[in-house]
């Protein structure tokens, strides 16, 4: 193995490959900032360009850089303008955007960069040493376990169910789950609830819903209220772009990063789960582990609430390479696209890759490590400049926020109906916000809804009923964890209220 690692280092650390890794990170970061262009689209778009290089190692190094860069770029738009253009960075907006509103955009971006770097790097170390063993573990997970895992991910809604909002949060989750059933699902091939509208045939587009729920209302409230968000933009630009994290904060996020790197990686290893569940799960777990005072901060600008999903989604992205490289099974949408690149390069990922083409196998792994370093080195100096975007006058900022939200929904679809749907969701979201309904549970329900139904359906078909819940220990354990995650905070709040 160490020979292979040395070979990988030798291949990845040539000047040409290092330059391509840096270029990939840069391109990925810039394009990933555009809502609607998540890592999967960016990697897919870059494949034809990268294939021109010719050398398989360099091509894959460039694509890995693009992948990591795009994940970080997506976090940036989530934090700065509350526009999560990709499901895996929705949880980043929960605390990242409130931090930016408080004038801590620079700090939020720094925490995101450090968490991404740590999650990715620890993930690569785990990938190097445990990939083959973990691949065998991953295939033990069946639909029943996936269903239970989604249930644990859904428990993240408890973060938004405090202070008399339990019913509202539950209603919003149900609404999200209902919206997720629109269109075709992989389990049932006939479209449902489309009302005969062709544009709904393939379901509601995630970007359209996310931008409608988050970016449009934000632009509206900023337009009607000149004071809103002023604390975030009226501070001196040095303060907004301040990257510094004090010792107390570093101490607080370190255990979060350590836990979420491992947890996120393990979730990423399981084919089909990916970074989205990892980020929600990370958020839910860390909220439950936090002290009562820290828990109150979740959803309002908690550094732990930001570090947890950022670490988890990067570690999971790395973890998703395990089934691809060791079994030839793509673990996520992006790795499925990467599988296409492998095939185009005449490489067959799977158990033979390590033996037949060790230089490719190890150079990809080593370049991931290098890509993470490049991402940190490249992006940290840029953070002050990126954060200063918030100091742009509102007459420029608000139309641009709205434009980027609409561009995200339109690009790739080329369908103006998406824009009308986006605005419709935006108006609904404004009404919900006036009535104090929390919107994140709606998006969590929507994002996890299809996975929830597909896996529950498959598990029930396999078991011909629901006995899989108690027949499969792992499923039972995960379901009990989900129940604990949801119920304990509610009981705790109820007891606290009673004591008052």
């Amino acid at each position, binding site marked *: 193995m160490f020979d292979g690692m040395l070979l990988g280092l030798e291949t990845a650390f040539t000047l040409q490959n290092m330059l391509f890794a840096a270029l990939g990170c840069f391109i990925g970061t810039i394009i990933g900032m555009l809502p609607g262009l998540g890592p999967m689209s960016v990697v897919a778009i870059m494949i034809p360009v990268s294939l021109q290089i010719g050398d398989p190692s360099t091509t894959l190094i460039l694509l890995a850089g693009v992948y990591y860069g795009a994940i970080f770029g997506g976090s940036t738009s989530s934090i700065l303008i509350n526009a999560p253009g990709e499901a895996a960075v929705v949880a980043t907006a929960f605390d990242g955007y409130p931090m930016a509103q408080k004038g801590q955009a620079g700090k939020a971006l720094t925490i995101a960069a450090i968490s991404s770097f740590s999650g990715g790097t620890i993930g690569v170390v785990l990938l190097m040493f445990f990939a083959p063993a973990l691949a065998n573990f991953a295939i033990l997970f069946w639909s029943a376990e996936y269903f239970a895992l989604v249930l644990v991910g859904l428990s993240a809604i408890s973060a938004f169910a405090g*202070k008399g909002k339990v019913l509202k949060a539950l209603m919003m989750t149900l*609404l999200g789950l209902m919206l997720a059933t629109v269109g075709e699902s992989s389990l049932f091939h006939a479209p449902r609830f489309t009302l005969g509208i062709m544009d709904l045939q393939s379901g509601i587009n995630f970007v359209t819903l996310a931008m409608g729920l988050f970016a449009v209302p934000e632009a509206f409230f900023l337009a009607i209220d000149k*004071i809103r968000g002023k604390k975030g933009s009226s501070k001196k630009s040095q303060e907004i772009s301040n990257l510094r994290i004090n010792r107390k904060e570093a101490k607080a996020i370190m255990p979060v990063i350590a836990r979420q790197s491992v947890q996120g990686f393990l979730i990423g290893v399981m084919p089909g789960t990916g970074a989205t569940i990892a980020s929600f799960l990370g958020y839910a777990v860390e909220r439950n582990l936090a002290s009562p005072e820290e828990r109150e901060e979740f959803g309002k600008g908690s550094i732990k609430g930001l570090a947890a999903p950022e670490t988890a989604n990067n570690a999971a992205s790395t973890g998703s390479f395990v089934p691809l490289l060791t079994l030839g099974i793509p673990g996520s949408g992006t790795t499925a696209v990467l599988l296409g690149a492998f095939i185009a390069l005449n490489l067959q990922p799977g158990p033979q890759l390590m033996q037949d083409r060790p230089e490719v196998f190890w150079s990809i792994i080593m370049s991931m490590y290098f890509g993470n370093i490049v991402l940190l080195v490249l992006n940290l100096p840029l953070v002050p400049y990126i954060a200063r975007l918030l100091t742009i006058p509102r007459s420029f900022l608000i*139309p641009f926020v709205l434009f980027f939200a609409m561009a995200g929904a339109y690009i790739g679809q080329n369908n103006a109906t998406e824009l009308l749907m986006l605005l419709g969701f935006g108006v609904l979201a404004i009404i919900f916000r006036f009535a104090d309904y929390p919107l994140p549970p709606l998006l969590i329900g929507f994002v996890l809804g299809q996975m929830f139904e597909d896996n529950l359906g498959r598990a029930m078909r396999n078991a011909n009923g629901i006995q899989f819940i108690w027949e499969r220990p792992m499923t039972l354990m995960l379901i009990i964890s989900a129940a604990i995650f949801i119920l304990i905070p509610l009981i705790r709040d109820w007891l606290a209220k009673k004591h008052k």
Partner: protein
Amino acid sequence: MLDLNRAVALALLAFSSGYAYLAFTYHLLPFELFLSVRPNTMPLALAVGGIVCSIALLIKPQSQEHETEGDGTVNRADGEYLKNPQNYNWIQGIALLVLATFYALFLRSLGFLFCTTAFLILGGILLGERRYTLLISISFTASILVWYLVDQVLTIFLRPWPGWFY
């Protein structure tokens, strides 16, 4: 009294009921009748949950607990806006949404470059920007840059000009 909270709950009840009706009347294929999970199994469960939840929201006494932070500039509870509506610039907000609707309606026919530039300029003017030269130049440059990046670099087609132009 039907306050906004209850009105929203009522709308959600109507939505859940409509969804329940569609789920209940969903046309199952003959073989689907024998499946343990049918295409309308989860929708029916969700609809029941939605109806129960929205009725509970309708009946439950409403209390809005808002959290304002220190000077009240951040995290102003959104419900606060309706309490003192005269303090806010509703026209700007609504006009911006109307402008966005026009953008959506005319984007395909007028082309990306013209529509986006016009949206950004008019949006800026609407929000009180009077430095027209700066506004026009930034809006035009941004439209061109985004179009160039998406259409030319990423090769995702975005019609730049009006449909009748070519």
